């Protein structure tokens, strides 16, 4: 039997600020618990060392404005690189599954990056997904986001990609950052139904969450048949998390991972550093390694405190029903959208960066292609934290793009490099893995390697 891969990278020398939830102490007690349990010594566990991600790995997902150095610290390269180590180990068949317990986290980071949102600068899972698709030819990927916050970054990155199924359950956006992830956020016009959101009322317990797993997540995975399942493993649904208000337990997390059987799990949020993280991380590892986790529990756990209210369960059942139906009828909806007029779908949006207090404006255009999911052009402008204002154009050619779309995307890029409308113009060509940055005013073009 192959072992479970474990990459533990607590970044003991990195913090957003000394008292921030993302500080050195975050995984200290998890370290104590894992080391004291001797879990790395077990024959069923293989520990891996992180590596640095390359700029090209990050450019495959992000348009970092103006460049990668502007927002990224070495810690970000290590966290992203860690997911690639686990991805390689999995694809080479060294491990049966893998868990990257890493920080800083990533699921709030969107395609365009002007700074830090929700403690995230770059999206670790998306970087891993694009790496797996390019290097190993994987096609269909499912991301199950089990963080208490809606993973709006991952959702945005794969909003128009029908080959990535993004399912998130989280505390209702009306009561928690980032204020999104509602039932009707279901994906772009050509990728409708492969974004599935399940907002849950505060104080939802193991019972409610497991209802979603059993009756929505598992059936959807069964029908979608992904090549790879990723758990975007936030740990802040826990009943002791200081930033959220749910009632999920370590046993609940362990059982979830047992049922979900993710190929790769990546730590996201979770800020109850003493009373939750040590136990949840143990639970996830044990479940993934196939160990008996019945002897695991929090010091203050008492079963009787975790009963689901019938009213809430009723609500959850209704959401599950709606989402099942949405997923199953998605092709019809996509066909309907394809028949709409105009060559491009267009959308305006505003994005708020809570950590860095930035207001970004975007105009997104998606080509309505009869053959593929189209290519995206994102016009973005924002005043960054240092006071500088940027107006940029980001053109993205997804890996499942048709030749006609790709050709058109490249020709748009070339046209824009000759105009002075934007400070920067970016081309992200995932098919040929070429990532270009142009500063038309300076007549300068860089290729990210």
């Amino acid at each position, binding site marked *: 039997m192959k072992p479970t891969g474990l990459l533990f*990278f607590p970044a003991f*020398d990195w913090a957003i600020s*000394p008292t921030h939830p993302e500080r050195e*102490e975050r995984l200290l007690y998890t370290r104590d618990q894992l080391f004291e*349990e001797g879990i790395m*010594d077990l024959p069923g566990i293989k520990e*891996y060392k992180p590596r640095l991600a390359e700029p090209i790995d990050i450019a495959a997902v992000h348009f970092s404005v103006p460049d990668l150095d502007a927002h990224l610290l070495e810690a970000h390269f290590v966290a992203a690189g860690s997911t690639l180590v686990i991805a390689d180990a999995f694809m080479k068949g060294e491990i049966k599954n893998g868990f990257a317990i890493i920080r800083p986290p990533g699921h709030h980071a969107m395609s365009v990056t002007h700074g830090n949102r929700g403690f995230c600068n770059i999206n670790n899972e998306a970087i891993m997904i694009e790496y797996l698709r390019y290097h190993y030819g994987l096609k269909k990927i499912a991301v199950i986001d089990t963080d208490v916050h809606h993973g709006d970054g991952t959702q945005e990155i794969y909003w128009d990609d029908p080959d990535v199924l993004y399912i998130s359950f989280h505390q209702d956006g009306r009561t928690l950052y980032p204020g999104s992830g509602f039932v009707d956020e279901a994906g772009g016009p050509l990728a409708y139904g492969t974004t599935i959101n399940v907002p849950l009322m505060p104080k939802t317990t193991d019972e409610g969450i497991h209802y979603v797993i059993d009756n929505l997540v598992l059936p959807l995975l069964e029908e979608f048949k992904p090549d790879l399942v990723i758990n975007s493993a936030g740990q802040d649904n826990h009943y002791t998390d200081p930033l959220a208000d749910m009632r999920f337990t370590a046993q609940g997390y362990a059982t979830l991972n047992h049922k979900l059987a993710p190929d790769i799990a990546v730590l996201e949020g979770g800020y109850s550093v003493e009373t939750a993280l040590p136990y949840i991380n143990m639970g996830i590892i044990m479940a993934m390694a196939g*160990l008996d986790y019945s*002897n695991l529990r929090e*010091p203050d756990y008492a079963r009787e405190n975790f009963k689901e209210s019938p009213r809430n369960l009723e609500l959850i059942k209704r959401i599950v029903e709606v989402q099942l139906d949405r997923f199953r009828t998605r092709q019809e909806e996509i066909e309907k959208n394809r028949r709409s007029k105009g060559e491009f779908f267009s959308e305006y949006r505003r994005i708020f960066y809570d950590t860095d207090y930035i207001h970004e404006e975007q105009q997104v255009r998606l080509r309505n292609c009869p053959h593929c999911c189209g290519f995206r052009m994102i016009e973005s402008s924002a005043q960054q934290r240092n006071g500088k204002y940027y107006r940029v154009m980001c053109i993205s050619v997804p890996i499942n793009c048709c030749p006609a779309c790709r050709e058109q995307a490249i020709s748009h890029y070339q046209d824009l490099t000759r105009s002075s409308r934007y400070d920067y113009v970016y081309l992200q060509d995932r098919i040929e893995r070429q990532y270009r940055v142009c500063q038309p005013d300076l007549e300068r073009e860089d290729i990210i390697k």
Partner: protein
Amino acid sequence: MLIGIDVGGTFTDGVLFNGRDIVKTIKQPTDNDNLQRVILDVLDDLLAAVPAQASVERIVLSTTLVTNLLATGRGERTALILIPGYGLPHSAYHLSPDTFFLRGAIDFRGREIEALAKDEVISLAKHLIQLGIKRAAVAGKFSNRNRSHEDQVAHLLKQEYPDLEVTLSCDISNRLNFPRRAATTYFTAMVSPEWQHFVNEVEKALQQKGLKAEVHILKADGGTLPLPVSRKYPCETIFSGPAASTMGALALTMDQQNSLVIDVGGTTSDLALLVEGVPLHASKGARLMGQYTHVDAVSVRSIAIGGDSPLTFAEGELKILPERHGPAACFGGETATVTDAFNYRLALNQGDINRSREYLQQIADLANMKLEDLCDSIITQVVTTLTETTREMFKEWENEPAYKVWEIVHRRHFTLDRVVGIGAAAYCIIPRVAESLGVQPFIHRYSDVANALGAAVARPTLSVYLHLDTERSTCAIEPGGVVEKRSDISKFQLEDARKLAVDYLYAMGKARGMDDYLDDYKVFLEEQFNMIRGWSRTGRIFDVGVQIAPGLIQAYQGVEQ
């Protein structure tokens, strides 16, 4: 004068060393059933060579006693009493056929989560009396952060069963890793009676001879431990053989280069690394009876090829066999061996080279090969195996987990400077291995007794590890099992924590007679964490480690080449 004795599986080596010269060397077959006899015989032979007016200042023994006791199942029957609390299932701990579990739990900050069930301990004591088990090892999860449960268990057991010998895990090791702590404590309890007996015998013998020399035991980490201190930590003495050869390599080279040390024995070769002149330690601690322990050990890879490994042609394949049939043909043996292949092909003129040719020719005839091709094929096999193992060791070292950004950005990279050959057969084999690794070989005229020399001149080592939690005012120190409340640490900064650790190192080092080396301490671990609750700091956690690393005693100034 200095004496070093290294008990190996087949031979026991001894050296008498003075100034810059090896005065006498002894090689005797090892009698595994009576190790102390062998040691005392070799000691007698060496003492006989001490001139009348000279005296022996230091004797260092490296012995396989503990490893042998455990490997042959001669350790005493010992109850393993675990207080594992919550986490892994009880089925994860299968160390002893007499394992017992107690309720009670402590968390990572040393807080009691669940009290000990006293009645359970009392009925366990009665049960042990019935079973006739006379020794117990007690280990609790996080007892390194709060030893009260282990202490209570010991107290209750002794109350009910006064003759029971109880060993507590927090006294044996204070580091994180409960299964390793449990295993180390269990093995310590099992071998303790035999080890006490051994120490008594050695002390008695020295007294009879009127020797005033300080006596040390070589540890797995390449350092020594005063004989009296070893009574408490017998497991530290395991795997001292590879430690002896590694320290021997250091004693022969005396510099800060990156060396690969290959000890070519009769049937195995042990590979170790000196990184800038310091032996590389196994990251997970020594593995004993299939269990990881808290014993620091030199990282060693053993491969089943040695100078006396016999050659054969069977089932259409040329093979190197793992079991020894006797010495190489050139030294009067009756089979062609690895040494013969190197000897003949490279014209090394070891022993009787004609015998090498004669026995190799027999195999060549069987294999229907030219004699030269046969030798080349063997040489390639040996060199390839050794170089591949070496590369794996480098890679493993470079890929050891790291938990800080700094460590990942500044990647480890190992550049080999040379290959040091140890053991009698090294002379034949090592030059070709070094050539294939693209570095210089290093063979010394005393390479074949480097292990005993290494033991003789290895200095004592000591690691002190400190864990402070200023919010809870707790302080835990290894070694010694100190876990105490301290009111004076609330305002501690990292410098204060470091100073406290250094103070402990000096106090413990002085008690062990290590005064000469204490100023040479190194800080190997330094971590501090601010504890933030709400938005303000409520305390700090410090982890500090200081040590006297393995090295050579000051009196040793090298040996004449």
